[in-house]
C-alpha cells in the first residue's frame, strides 16, 4: 500500500499558530452571510419560505445582532433570546419547553428545569418588556438574580 500523507497533518495546516489573527475579533464569514440586518431590536424583514429567499414574504425575526459571523453558541444567550423571543415567551409562561432547554445550556445554567420554573415565576416582571429592546436584558437579569441557578454565561 502506498504511504499516504496523513489527513491529520493536512488539517493541521489549516490551523497553525494564530499570529495573524491576533488583534482581530471574529466577524465575517464566507457563507453568503445572513440577511438579518444589524439594527438591534427591530423587526427584521427576513426573506421567508422556500427554495428562494422570497423577500416579499415577510418573516419577522427580532434579531439582536447581525449576520452569520456569529454562531448560535458564540453569539450567546442575548441573540438567542431575541431571535426566539415569541417562542421563548410562550415556553416561559408554560414553565417548560425546548427554547428554555437551549437557552439554559447557552447561558451555562445548571438545571434547565429550575431555569424554567424561575422564568415562569419571573414572567410578570419580564412581560412588560416583551416588545422592547430590553426583553433580552430582562430575561438575562432574571437568570442573574437567582444565584441558585448558577448560570455562568449571562454576562
Amino acid at each position: 500500500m502506498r504511504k499516504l500523507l496523513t489527513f491529520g497533518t493536512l488539517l493541521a495546516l489549516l490551523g497553525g499558530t494564530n499570529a495573524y489573527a491576533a488583534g482581530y475579533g471574529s466577524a465575517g464569514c464566507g457563507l453568503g452571510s445572513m440577511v438579518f440586518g444589524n439594527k438591534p431590536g427591530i423587526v427584521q424583514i427576513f426573506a421567508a419560505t422556500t427554495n428562494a429567499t422570497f423577500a416579499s414574504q415577510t418573516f419577522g425575526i427580532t434579531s439582536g445582532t447581525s449576520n452569520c459571523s456569529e454562531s448560535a453558541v458564540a453569539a450567546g444567550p442575548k441573540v438567542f433570546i431575541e431571535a426566539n423571543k415569541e417562542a421563548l415567551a410562550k415556553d416561559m409562561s408554560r414553565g417548560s419547553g425546548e427554547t428554555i432547554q437551549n437557552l439554559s445550556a447557552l447561558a451555562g445554567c445548571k438545571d434547565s428545569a429550575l431555569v424554567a420554573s424561575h422564568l415562569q415565576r419571573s414572567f410578570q416582571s419580564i412581560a412588560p418588556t416583551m416588545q422592547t429592546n430590553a426583553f433580552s436584558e430582562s430575561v438575562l437579569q432574571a437568570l442573574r438574580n437567582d444565584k441558585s441557578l448558577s448560570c455562568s454565561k449571562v454576562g
Partner: protein
Amino acid sequence: MATPRLAGLVRGAASRGLLRPAAEFVFSANALESSLIRFFFHSGRMALTVLAAWSLFAMPAHAASPTYADQLVARARTLDLANSRAWLALLHVKPSWWGKPASELAGADFFLSPNGATDPSAELEATVRAWFLPMPVTSAPLPGGVTPVDAPRDTTAVMDARGRYVAAAQHAICRFPARFLFLGQQLELDAATLPPVDCPAAQKFLERVQAQSITLVFSGYHLSAPASAFGHIFLRMNRNMDSGHGRSLELLDHAVDYSADADAGNAIAYAIKGLVGAYPGTFHAMPYYYKVREYNDFESRDLWEYDLNLPPDRLLLLLAHVWEVGWAYAPYYYLSGNCAYHIMALLDAVAPRLEASSGLGWPVLPVNSAKRLASIPGLLRQVRFRPSIRRQFEQRVAPMSSQERGWVSTLIDEPTQEITGIAPPRQAAVLDAAADLVDLRYARELVTDPEGKAGRLRQKILERRALLGIPSPELPQDVPINERPDKGHDTYRVGAGAAMAGQLHTRLEPGATLDFRLTMHDLADPPGGYPSLGQLEFLALRGTWLSHANRLHLDRADLVHVASLQAFDAFAPKPSWRFRVGVDQRIDRLCTDCVLGTAQASGGLTFANKSKMFSTFLMTDMLVQTGPRVAPWHFKVPVGAMVGPLFGFRWQLGNDVVLLASAAYRYAANASRGWTLGWEAKARWLVGHGVALGAEGTGADSVIQATGMAYLYF
C-alpha cells in the same frame, strides 16, 4: 516546535464501522498514532479535537519549492487526478448539455485558474502551485459603514483592533481546504515543504459549526405559497449537544441551505426569473432556530429530519467544502438547479459514490432528494419530526372535553375571562392551547404589528398562564408516519385504460385512454406521504381515442392544478380553494367539441372527520374560457365565463383506496347562456408498489365517459 503527527486522524473513526461504500479514497494511519486517535474519537467530539489538533501545530518555515510543486503536478498527471470523480465533484463539474464539462458553480473566486470552470486540470495545477505561495498579507479596510457581508468575495472580513472590518485575502489552502485535503492526501504531499500558513477565518468557521453529524431537513409542502409548494431541503450540521431531554440542543445547531437571492419584485417577475435562472443562488449558514421559527411557527409547516450516517472523514470534508462554496454561486433554477439539487451536489462533492445528485429527475423535487438518500443502504440513521404550530395546537386540543374547548374559544376573544369549573392543571392546558391558537391565527399580525391587538391578546394569555405556576408537560411525540414524505408515491405518473363514451341516451362507443402527468399528486392518488387534502399537479395530459368516430378527444391538458382543502376548524378556519390553468375540450349542450383555454378557480369550505379520512367540500366554482369557437361577448372578446356551486366528497379507506367525487352546476354567462351540469367520480386503489387501478367517470350534461385505468408511478 515539532510537528506531532496525527496520522489517519479521520480514518480511525471511519474504520469503526461507519459507512464504507461512500469511501472513494482512504486515509491511512500508523500504529504509533492510533492510541492518540482512539483517545480523540472516544471523546466523541471530533470537531473540537480537530481544532485542538490545529493549535498544536506550528508549521516549520521552509522556503517555497517550485520544483516540488512541479513534481506534484506531474504526479497528479500520472494519476489522472484531474479527471477523477472526486476532483470533478469538488469542482462541481458536470457534463453540460453541449458536451463540454463545466462547473455548475460560478464566481471567479471559486477557481484559482482563469479557466478553472471548464478545465479541471488547469484548476488542479493552479491549486497545487498556489499552496506554495507565501501567506498573503493584504488586508484593506472596507469602505465606511460596510459590514462583512459586503466584503469582496475572495476575501474574508475580519475586525481589526480598531473595530473596523477589513477584507483579508486568504491563502489558497485556507480558501479551498477540501481541495487541499483531497489533493494533498492523494499526492502524498510532504507538508514540511509548505510555507507557513494560518487560516483564522476557516478555523473560526469550523469552530462555530462543530458538526458531529448531519441531518437532511425537509420542510413540508406549502401549497399557499407557490415558491415553496414543493417544500424545501437543507442540511443541519449537528453538534449533538446533550440537553438531558429527548432531543439534543438542536436549536443551536447550524443549518446550511442553498437559496436564491431574489429581489422583492412582484410574483410574476419572480416566477419567471426563478424559472430561467436569473437569480443567483448562494449557500447560507445560520442557526437552526431561525429555521424552526420560520417554518414551524411562522408558516406552520412540519419539518422532517433525516439523520444521516456520514463517516467522520466525509463529514470533515463536507465542512471544509461548505466553507469553499460560501463564495460561489450558481444561477438558481426553480425546476432544476434548486435547493435540492445543490444540497445533493454538496454531498456528492465529498462522497461521490453516493450519487446523491443523480437520478433526481426533472423537475427536481425536494422530496426526491430525501427519497434518494433514504434509498442508499446504510445512509439513513433515523427519521424524526418537528410538528408545525397547527399540529401542536391540534395535539393539545384533541384530548380536551367540549367544556375545555369552549374555554379555548372564549379566551381567544376575552383573555381576561375567569376560567371556572376546571382544575388548575386543565386551566393550564386550556391556556397553552389558546396561546398556540393566537400564534396560528395571527401569525402575520404578530410579526408586522407586535404591539397591536394580537400582540396584547397573546401577552395577556401568557401572563395568566405563568401565574398558574404549573409546568406544562412536553407534548408527546406524535409522528404522522403516513405522511412521511419519502414514503410517498413517485412523482411521475402514466396511465392507460379502456373507455366508453358518448351520449347517455344513445349508444356509447368504446375507446382507449392515455394519461401522463409530469408531477406530482392529486386528491385521488395513493395518499401515503402526502398531505391528505392537498393536490399539486403540473403538466397533466389525458386523451381518449374514440373508436367509432376514429378521433382523439382531449380529456384535459392542465398546466397547473393545485387544490388545498382545509378541514374546517372552528378555532382557526381557513378557506379551501383550487386553481387550474389548462386547455379543455368541452362537450356539453352549450358548446360541443370546443377546445378552450381555461382558467378555473374555486373557493369554499371543507368539512372533514377527525382523521380527515372522510371530507366533503362546498365551493363556488368559476371558469373563464377562451377559444376560437367561443362566441364574442362584451367588447367582441371571445371569452366565456361560467360560475356556479360545486359540491364533492373524498373518502379515504386506509392508505390504499380513495374515492373522490364532485359535481358542479354552472351558469354560462356568455352568448350561449344557460345552466350546465358537470361531474366527475374516481375510485383508485393502490395495488402494489407504484401501481394503482382506477375506475373513473366524467359527465357534462348528457355526455358521459367511463374509464377503467391502470396507473404507474415512477
